[in-house]
């Protein structure tokens, strides 16, 4: 094999055809199989939730889509404004559900901060924080999480996280995604709608979600699409330029954090290409040439893809039964 061309995106009229295909599949799934009459979409101001909302409007009409705004104390400052802009563009009904009071009550921030305090005693309420991983491209280092904290006057401290502290920080932070999902299902039940999840292929495949948090949904309309393709649909569906130009963020920790630095280690277009190449058995040397990386770097990305897939098996697993029941109609495992 000589030469490999990165070819992740839709060509010609494929994007328009894909929009029509997804809209038809959503109608079949939500109206026909799930017997619900519309969709709830949590709007984050990011590209994925914006595209999912627009696809739901294509499928069900604007009067059968509810957009939810669920900001919390540490949401990025422009999240609410961007999410509102999408809802206005799509002319859908919306509801504000600020989740900070629920997160305070359940101890999300306090439990996380208590864990961080054990490794950085100076850390206290009012400081900002985020988790970081070494970049997969930078040599053979094992990828262990560190915490970065920043005082109100800008001083930063970095510390590697012991196992128990890491687990508690993640467990406490995951309240954010799980509280949001609880509210999505409240509104879905109230309106007899389905909950539309917003993961793209990278997130779904690599396990970049919280189990029973943003990983939960009745239907996931873009889980088969590479991020490159999601951007193409966004263009077609009229998602505002400002959202299409914004780097994908986690919007989970109080310090700004892109998905690239937190999880993927590569810009989304390169990550798309590596995932596609990994699944098609393209040798690292050819991918490296096409992406401007070294063969060793691509080999490390391949190993990281495999490791994340292994870790994602638990996240994707439904509740497991000791004896499968084989219920007629086929919803049982």
């Amino acid at each position: 094999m000589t030469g490999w061309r990165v070819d992740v995106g839709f060509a010609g009229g494929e994007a328009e055809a894909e929009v029509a295909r997804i809209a038809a599949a959503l109608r079949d799934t939500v109206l026909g199989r799930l017997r619900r009459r519309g969709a709830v979409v949590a709007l984050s101001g990011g590209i994925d939730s914006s595209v999912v909302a627009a696809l739901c409007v294509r499928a069900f009409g604007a009067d059968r889509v509810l957009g939810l705004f669920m900001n919390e104390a540490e949401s990025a400052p422009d999240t609410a404004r961007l999410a509102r802009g999408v809802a206005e563009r799509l002319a859908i009904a919306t509801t504000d559900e600020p989740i900070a009071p629920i997160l305070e009550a359940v101890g999300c921030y306090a439990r996380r901060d208590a864990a961080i305090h054990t490794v950085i005693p100076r850390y206290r309420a009012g400081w900002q924080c985020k988790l970081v991983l070494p970049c997969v491209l930078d040599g053979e280092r094992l990828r262990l999480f560190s915490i970065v904290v920043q005082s109100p006057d800008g001083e930063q401290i970095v510390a590697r996280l012991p196992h128990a502290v890491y687990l508690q920080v993640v467990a406490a932070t995951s309240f954010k995604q799980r509280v949001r999902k609880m509210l999505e299902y409240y509104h879905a039940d109230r309106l007899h709608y389905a909950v539309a999840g917003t993961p793209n292929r990278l997130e779904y495949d690599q396990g970049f979600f919280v189990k029973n948090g943003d990983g939960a949904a009745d239907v996931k309309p873009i889980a088969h699409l590479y991020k490159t393709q999601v951007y193409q649909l966004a263009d077609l569906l009229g998602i505002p330029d400002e959202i299409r130009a914004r780097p994908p963020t986690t919007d989970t920790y109080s310090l700004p954090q892109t998905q690239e630095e937190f999880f993927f280690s590569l810009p989304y277009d390169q990550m798309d290409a590596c995932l596609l190449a990994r699944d098609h058995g393209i040798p690292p040397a050819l991918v490296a040439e096409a992406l401007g990386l070294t063969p060793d770097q691509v080999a490390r990305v391949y190993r990281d893809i495999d490791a994340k897939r292994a870790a994602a098996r638990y996240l994707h697993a439904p509740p497991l039964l000791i004896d499968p029941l084989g219920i007629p109609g086929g919803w049982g495992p």
Partner: protein
Amino acid sequence: MYDDPTDPQRHLRDFIVTNFYIPDGQPLDEVTSFLDAGIIDSTGVLELVAHVESRYGITIADHELIPSNFDSIGALARFIQRKRGSDGGSNDRLAR
């Protein structure tokens, strides 16, 4: 239990078997790769690092967190021996 201070392999093997799931038929010798065999994932590595630091009284620097030091019982035992030789890690935690 008392470790032979010159060879932590037996203790490391006990720790791995006790704390991680080893499927029936999965060999675990001194060269079995933890990551390739699916015995330890990235969260498990955190647990292993914390345990080694605590038990052997050593501090592991970021640049030492590489597979060639951590990915098998043999590699890890040799790394611990080197560290204890170079930073004088304490022996008083070994007689647990």
